[in-house]
């Protein structure tokens, strides 16, 4: 199978630039990168047809091998339409994202950050309760409760702080 070298180089450039752009944090660049990637793939499908020949319209007495393979063209057509729809949707999405946050970069997931920073200590599972629970040692219990309260307070403060940071950003 022989291929068109120019098209092949164009395809390679599109792929490399596309991958570079997709790795960016800016959404507009990601969309541009995706467009390049889909178009590079369209070129790749065209390559799959081999060397171009006659237009694939049936005429009497033509050698079947001299036609261009029509199937990849049909595939490309479908792929282009899908790419168009998806790109349009992506543009709508990043416009909405920009309208909401006035920023073009993809933001971190708040819940992710919270899980990452949570302590390994869980009150109801890890708190060291007084061993002998039948004896109501008030002092101990009170101390424990105080400790718990403080922990909650710290936790609350931490969350407030985080919230503030988030708001500032």
């Amino acid at each position: 199978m022989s291929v068109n070298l120019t098209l092949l180089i164009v395809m390679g450039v599109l792929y490399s630039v596309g991958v570079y752009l997709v790795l960016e944090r800016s959404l507009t660049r990601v969309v541009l990168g995706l467009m390049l990637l889909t178009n590079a793939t369209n070129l790749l499908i065209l390559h799959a047809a081999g060397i171009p020949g006659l237009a694939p319209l049936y005429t009497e007495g033509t050698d079947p091998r001299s036609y261009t393979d029509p199937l990849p063209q049909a595939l490309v057509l479908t792929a282009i339409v899908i790419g168009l729809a998806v790109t349009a949707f992506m543009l709508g999405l990043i416009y909405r994202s920009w309208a909401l946050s006035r920023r073009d970069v993809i933001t971190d997931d708040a819940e992710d950050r919270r899980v990452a920073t949570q302590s390994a200590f869980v009150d109801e599972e890890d708190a060291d309760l007084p061993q002998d629970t039948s004896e109501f040692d008030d002092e101990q219990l009170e101390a424990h409760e105080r400790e718990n309260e403080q922990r909650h307070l710290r936790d609350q403060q931490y969350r407030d702080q985080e919230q503030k940071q988030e708001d500032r950003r």
Partner: protein
Amino acid sequence: MSIDVAQLAPLAIIVPFVGAALSLVLFHRNRLQRLVAIGSLVVSLAVEMLVLATSWDAPPTSVNLGGWEAPFGIVLIVDQLSAVMLVVSTIVSLAVLIYATGQGVADGDSAGPISIFHPTYLILVAGVSNAFLAGDLFNLYVGFEIFLVASYVLMTMGGTTQRIRAGVTYVVVSIISSVLFLIAIAMVYAATGTVNMADLCLKLADLPVGTQMQLHLMLLVAFGIKAAVFPLSFWLPDSYPTASAPVTAVFAGLLTKVGVYSIIRTETLLFPGEQINGLLMWVSLLTMVVGILGALAQIDVKRLLSFTLVSHIGYMVFGIAVGTAAGFAAVVYYVGHHIIIQTSLFLVAGLIERRGGSTNSDRLGGMARLAPVLAVLYMIPALNLGGIPPFSGFLGKIGLFQAGVDNATWQTYVVISGAVLTSLLTLIALMRVWNRVFLRTTDDADFPDPVLLAPSREGHWGAGAVQTLTRDEGGRQTVSLLPRLMVWPTAVLVVIGVALTVFAGPLFAVADNAAENLVNPGAYVEAVLGPEGAPSGPVEQAAGDGDSDGREVAP
């Protein structure tokens, strides 16, 4: 034999599409729109059940669309695997659709601009059915794109900050996996000159081993992203939980399973060799263990469930990696089980969010007293997913382990012990939710949600488990917290999940039939190309004497 029922299979795609078109036209007549949507799913479910019944122990059947012969035209294939997947997926989508409709009715959002939900949802179902029936790679790609584009819309519906943020990640990752899939298709076509899967089954084997391996891995990466297999799974727990409850439920149930289905087809039909099974074995172990460790760290119930979803994909990959008929039979059963159980858990999470105001388990507590029905509906699928003996999760896992042990290497034993560990950790994760959300009192919640603490107006539990309370001070709107139309579909799915145990015998029988056809791709090839299509010649010859009459006599 006047009519071959399997030829009705395209209806599973056409009916939802027609329903989508109709319900789009009827966007301003809400009641009618809902009826059309639910009706079209009921019809396609009936057709699919008929198809499943006829293909129960029959050889695979192919349907030529547009009257074109096999390697040229588009074919749809009906075998036990696709029939089972179709029926299970439509049952689940129907339940979720009713649930979503119930939510819409209860919240009175019928006047809102969300009337686009029903058409989009039906398109999603049509795309999934198309993927399950597709007989050539490009049609599979188109099926993927149909349901993915629908899922982009469903995922970002409402357009809140959170959903847009998660939606962008989801859309970008999906597009990249689609591009990879398309690249793989182009390369497959360049190497073999066909995209018909049966034809590929014959032709791929003639390629040099290196080329085969490259095509194989490209397809696996593309499907692995869709199926959320370990190193490619990070997008899932990030994006799924932000969508609305019914959307998350249907995504969790169906979309990853389409990826698993495609991996099954790749491993059985396109590349039946065993070169890559060792790799899949390790991937499955990592998927299970890393997924469940992620789940243990979560506080949010929906995120926790998303991580268990990723983790349990590992079980299916394990069955595929075993690669024997017993392994595939267990995978077929396990996929069916997992679709139903995971969806019902997500639906329950949606109900928890409604009743308790949040899915963050820090903000919840005392739900067992507030909503005993929810406690039951949560506990049964949770035990089921964790693999407690009488339930289907246990049966599926036993099937997988048995298949693994029958064909044992030391790797298999490592993966099996990892799987047992994962199953225990799943139980721990789910029971922690149980303890925090249901068992402890409301006062113990760290930051109880206002909705949780709000006094209920009726103050007692009627038989119907339906409560209403006034959210606004002025009492303008009475919101039903647990509308019947949302509780019932969930309950039905839970019951079906239990029925998977009761009817495990026949289900394993059909799974065995499916596996038999999977490990002998010859039957599939014969169904598509006809008895004489088998010789691996160039495309032109194979089609010329393809025998279409031989196909019609399937019992």
